[in-house]
């Protein structure tokens, strides 16, 4: 029994252009799948479609089964029940993903309160715990801070804490580290990896960067122009890419790596 099952998903713009073309994928509980492709390949749209959050005017057909809910054609009411419960998402840009006018603590309290029915001091304690759990130092101070008062890495940890606060069965991470510095990036990946393993949470990890995907995912699906070109275990894809496009992806990741090896004089 899979927790996410996408069959023949087609996403079209209002003027009829096809952005995602008959995409199928499925995720078992606790499984971690990387969705990789360049910008415009439809990977972020796919992740938004899973939560029924496509931009206005876009339409989808096919089937997305998330838990027991069919997302394609679902009412807003059904979608609200699913969002945050069956799946939660961490977005790419942590500065704009948080409300600039609201203290971080209150923003985390929102899904926490809704999900667990907490109020008052209990809710406050849960917020602190949520911030501690994403390894933020001085959680009380961070809870009182506004998003512009903390660093990019800290903001993304807050966003991660908000998603985890819902205790979803599936975590969707849409390029969660792309906007971050490289050093912060790898810390956050380690953290995400550890947290989802602890919880045996399934992950749909969307990225354009094969190295980043390899760090978190065990299986990868390569997307090009809205179509799945190749799918398999990360190890197999990296060692023996079958499709030309996948080869290019692997080669460019390797080139960066070899440049590093060369320059370091080894």
């Amino acid at each position: 029994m899979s927790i996410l099952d996408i069959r023949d998903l087609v996403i079209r713009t209002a003027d009829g252009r096809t952005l995602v073309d008959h995409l199928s994928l499925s995720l078992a509980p606790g499984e971690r799948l990387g969705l990789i492709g360049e910008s415009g390949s439809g990977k972020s749209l796919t992740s938004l479609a899973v939560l029924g959050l496509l931009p206005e005017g876009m339409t989808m057909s096919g089937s997305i089964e998330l838990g027991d809910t069919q997302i394609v054609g679902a009412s807003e009411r059904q979608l609200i029940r699913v969002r945050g419960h069956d799946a939660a998402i961490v977005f790419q840009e942590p500065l704009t993903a948080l409300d600039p006018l609201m203290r971080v603590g209150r923003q985390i309290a929102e899904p926490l309160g809704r999900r667990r029915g907490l109020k008052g001091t209990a809710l406050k304690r849960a917020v602190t715990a949520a911030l501690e759990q994403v390894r933020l130092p001085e959680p009380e101070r961070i809870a009182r801070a506004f998003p512009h008062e903390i660093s990019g890495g800290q903001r993304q940890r807050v966003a991660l804490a908000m998603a985890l606060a819902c205790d979803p069965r599936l975590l969707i991470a849409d390029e969660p580290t792309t906007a971050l510095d490289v050093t912060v990036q790898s810390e956050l990946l380690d953290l995400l990896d550890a947290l989802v393993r602890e919880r045996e949470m399934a992950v749909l990890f969307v990225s354009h960067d094969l190295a980043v995907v390899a760090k978190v995912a065990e299986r990868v699906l390569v997307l090009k122009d809205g179509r799945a070109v190749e799918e398999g275990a990360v190890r197999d894809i990296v060692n023996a890419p079958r499709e030309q496009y996948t080869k290019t992806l692997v080669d460019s990741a390797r080139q960066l790596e070899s440049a590093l090896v060369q320059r370091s004089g080894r």
Partner: protein
Amino acid sequence: MARYLLRRFAFLLVSLALASVVLFVLLRMLPGDPANALTSVGASAEQIAAARESIGSDKPLPEQFAHWIGQLVRGDLGTSFISSLPVGPEVSARLNVTLPLTAAAFALAVLIAVPAGFVAAYRRRTWYGALLSGISQLGIAIPVFWLGMILIAVFALNARWLPAGSFPPDGWAQPGEASRSLVLPVVTIALVMSASLIRYVRSATLDVLDSDYLRTARALGSSFGQAMWRHGMRNASVPVISILGIELASTLLGAVVVESVFALPGLGSMLATGIAQHDYPVIQGVLFISTLAVLIIGFAADLIQRIIDPRLRAGLSGGVR
């Protein structure tokens, strides 16, 4: 916050001082002599000189200015050249008409523009959303006096529901009568003001609808209404408040047109009469009070924005503009 308030207050005083200099000097650069208004046509040179002496316009300008500022500091707006009555009490009597007029029009405009602007943004792909945007575009092009005359023609002359103009001589002593005579002017200003406000509310709402934080809230299980209530309204209000400040100030200054159309004894018509008669103390008094009001409105708008937006408090420009 205390430092900000202090700085902002100092700024207000400096602006007010500069504005008084400018309005004093500009007024005296206008052609015409107030003494002419006091004397009859064909008056002799001696009569005119006597008239100048009686109102003090024969003295050097710096001395006249110092005299005026000296009065202002004591809270005295001076004495009319023409009626020899003090300007201050007259201004406050006129404010009894202009302030309720402006405040009610402003409140009505906000009540119209906020929901209409929201619908124009949220339902922009429907026919009524587009219609609202269209009406607002059209409304911006409508002059206040023209709308005022149309409303008079329809509701006062034809339907005879409301008075075409004028204000009861004993003012608010007759609250029913006084309110009735303000209805059409208030509606006139409010409709014109809301036309441009709808545009700003619409664009602020579009920004919010398009924002990542709204998407985050919904992605984690908020309904659209909850997300809009908790995150959308506050964020949209920041840019709208600065526009509201500007609109309120310009309505106060623009009241002269509506007051003329509806024959209301407000601050605007006092200014118009003052200008016609070269009555410097009256013009100066009205403009000084208006400037003060505009500065205070700007101050208030700024303060409210800072209370809402922590980025402004931190001295960051934030996402406001």
